[in-house]
């Protein structure tokens, strides 16, 4: 082919690169390995990790949950047409991905209770960032009040990206009962962000937040746990303007934190402010139903510097996985998961109280996650529980510390945890704490 181009060497192809900037040496990188050797090396790394499995039973949540994933989800979700496709810029040959996303959007809208859902964002944190940007653009305000019960990692991300446009992020503290203490001065608030349940697992009073937002002329943003919506009313039913979530619990592996899946829904009125991709239904030339990315005029490649979001890719593959997992669960299975999480949470909480490990406090109701104050700090408990075969939870310390709950252990339940595991966990905790 070089010959065809009348060239002698690759160097000639690169003649336009000035000598001064050309790399005149080999890359200082290891030599090529066969795929088998690569897999061996990566397996060595994998062996240095401790995955959540029966040897390390996971009671940790804090934004990432150890749910059972149906075999169909990984099996169909791993088909190469989904995995190796590009963004559906040519809808005529991308109906598979487009229809999958349309169905995903439909499911997310039914869960969130809001009419419009996009085709996903990077993760829960990026959904929060986009909600803030949307809210500030829409209200032309810049004061953002975020509940202290929002995932602290997400709050940090929001604070990072707020530095760009210069939004003021204000954290409303959490009281001893686990409820957000909202500010009394509501002047110029663009949006209120509340967790549902919040990071501590407590179910906050959304009616109250709706009232606050309405009187402030602000948007109400609800950051929800999608699994909780199996039992709880939807954010939309409370009049939320925006609902965001981390979609990982919907069939996405723990994956050391990524790739995950940001869920983002808005009320119909906000559709033209929506960040990210949106798939719509239409017709082809023969009048057959077809799908296409729509309202493209919102997007960065068209609006350029006037865009209110720079999102280009989303997490399509994870959205397809979630659509498959939600279909696999279905109406009744999704409810079963919620009931199982709640039942196990109630069971474990009772067992902890009956073992004298913790006491019953007056606080908000929980769904599937709750903080526990033990005689040892959470990080110590986690370290000591590890050799007994448990990831005991998440330590509410350091950057995850939350007022009134600092040093507590945050414990999460999923439908994957069995009574046997929970009983063993309580036994191990007794051993560690006594």
């Amino acid at each position: 082919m070089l010959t065809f181009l009348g060239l002698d060497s690759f160097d000639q192809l690169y003649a336009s690169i000035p000598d001064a900037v050309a790399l005149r040496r080999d890359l200082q990188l290891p030599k090529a390995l066969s795929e088998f050797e690569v897999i061996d090396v990566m397996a060595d790394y994998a062996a240095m990790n401790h995955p959540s499995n029966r040897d390390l039973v996971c009671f940790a949540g804090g934004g990432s949950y150890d749910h059972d994933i149906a075999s169909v989800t990984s099996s169909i979700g791993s088909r190469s047409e989904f995995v190796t496709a590009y963004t559906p810029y040519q809808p005529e040959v991308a109906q598979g991905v487009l229809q999958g996303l349309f169905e995903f959007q439909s499911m997310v809208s039914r869960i969130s209770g809001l009419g419009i859902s996009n085709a996903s964002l990077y993760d829960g944190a990026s959904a929060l960032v986009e909600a803030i940007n949307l809210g500030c653009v829409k209200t032309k305000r810049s004061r953002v009040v975020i509940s202290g019960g929002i995932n602290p990692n997400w709050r940090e991300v929001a604070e990072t990206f707020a530095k760009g446009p210069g939004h003021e992020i204000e954290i409303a503290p959490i009281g001893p009962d686990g409820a957000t203490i909202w500010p009394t001065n509501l002047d110029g608030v663009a949006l209120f962000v509340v967790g549902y349940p919040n990071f501590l697992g407590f179910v906050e009073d959304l009616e109250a937040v709706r009232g606050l937002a309405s009187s402030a002329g602000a948007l109400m943003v609800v950051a929800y746990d999608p699994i909780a919506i199996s039992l709880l009313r939807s954010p939309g039913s409370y009049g939320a303007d925006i609902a965001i979530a981390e979609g990982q619990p919907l069939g996405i592996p723990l994956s050391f934190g990524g790739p995950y899946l940001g869920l983002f829904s808005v009320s119909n009125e906000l559709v033209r402010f929506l960040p990210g991709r949106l798939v719509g239904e239409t017709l082809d030339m023969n009048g057959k139903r077809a799908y296409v990315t729509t309202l493209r005029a919102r997007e960065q490649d068209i609006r350029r510097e006037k865009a209110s979001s720079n999102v280009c890719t989303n997490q399509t593959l994870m959205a397809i996985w979630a659509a498959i997992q939600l279909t696999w669960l279905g109406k009744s299975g999704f409810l079963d998961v919620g009931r199982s999480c709640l039942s196990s949470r109630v069971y474990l909480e009772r067992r902890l109280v009956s073992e004298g490990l913790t006491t019953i406090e007056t606080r908000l109701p929980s769904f599937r996650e709750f903080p526990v104050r033990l005689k040892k700090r959470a990080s110590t408990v986690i370290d000591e529980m590890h050799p007994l075969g448990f990831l005991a939870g998440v330590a509410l310390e350091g950057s995850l510390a939350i007022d009134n709950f600092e040093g507590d252990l945050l414990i999460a339940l999923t439908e994957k945890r069995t009574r046997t595991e929970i009983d063993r966990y309580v036994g191990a905790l007794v051993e560690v704490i006594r």
Partner: protein
Amino acid sequence: DSEPTIFEISVSGRRCGAIRDSGIESVDASDHLPLAYLRSEPVALPEVSERDLVGHFTRLTHRQYSVDLGAYPLGSCTMKYNPKLADTVAGMSGISGVHPHLPSSHSQGWLEIALEIESYLKEITGMAGATLSPAAGAQGELTGLLMMKAYHLDRGNHKTKILIPDSAHGTNPASVSLAGYSVVTVPSNEKGLVDLELLKSLVGDDVAGIMLTNPNTVGLFEEDIAEIAKAIHDVDGLLYYDGANLNAIVGIARPGDMGFDIVHSNLHKTFATPHGGGGPGSGPVAVAEKLLDFLPGPYPVRGHDGIKWTTPSKSIGRVHSFYGNAVVYARALAFMKALGGEGLRQMSQIAVLNANYLKAMISSYYPPAYEATCMHEFVVSTAALKKSFGIRALDIAKGLLDKGFHAPTVYFPLIVDEALMIEPTETESRQTLDAMAEALIELAKDALDEDAASKMAGGPRRTPVTRVDEARAARTLITTVDAHSK
């Protein structure tokens, strides 16, 4: 022949398998949560058998083109083949099953992976440090720009503007806006390159920096890069390298050696992680020495007792819920290890060779927008074809779909009329390039024949659906199955 939605397949009462029996008695939700909080009806998710689920989604895959089915010459998107060995890696339970809150002492393997791919990225880009946090290129851009901003704040610089060439991707200006800067567009010259003199005239003390990709979006290497860098650095501005086109120059030239200070990489492009129909991506950002303190945190740092999470002193803060799209960069590392240093260089060489070969094969029918030897991609204009029977770039693109290829990028970059931007990548064989050239040439010939042209204008016809009415989608705005009933 359209596939019904999964909701249309749904029948009340049907379900797939059961969830696990936990052995714990089910409680009544109303005993534990306020009744007012509880929903009265279950969420109306689909109700289908597992058999119908599998049938539905499998049939959807037969309505979807993908790299594994054929060539995808989408300019600027670098849709190369994704080696399957990375799937084997991604499927290991010690990779996919690790909880992100697991203490670092028990996730050392992941932290080793992170440090190792960082070291590859640093060597390839010529940078001093890197973060793997950004979940995609666009997030990497904003992360990089926020570091730029933090740098200037730290130095007491008063900067308001960022320069961007007119050929840039849309994410660049959008990211600049979201970083709180204003965009100053730098026009390209007739050679498709940054006009150095014009650029110099735009550079002043208020310029925070410039965002470039090199090779640029028309596929040409910015030959004046050293002078550009000098001009920007002279006002203590920073150079941001958009890694979208890194695939052309790995092992050949390094952004750091060109004077860049911040570099993001799109791992799905250069390092072959699969694109997933539009994500997940991964957009690591590598930086020069002077920006190390500003990197997002926490990130892994090797100490005497293993690798630990650390946040640098002047960090811009966290940019992702955890540490980026971890499984994506584990895949990229597997790819890099399989190629090795020499293989990575060859990758770029062949990408450039393939682009020049294809360009030469079709240039008599599709005049290149710029004559110079291209890098990994090239832009042609179909403006001439429009004059015959009104065949536009879009029609050529749709015509290619009918011939079993994906279409090139159309109408980008904006500075070329009726642009087709073509990037064959290094993974397509000469035979495939020949077949693609033949298909493109047939289409160009058809455009000159009234009958064939009129057929082409209505295409594609042999695809799962025929040409899609995009305007209708925006007008009716049906974005969920429930929108119909509204």
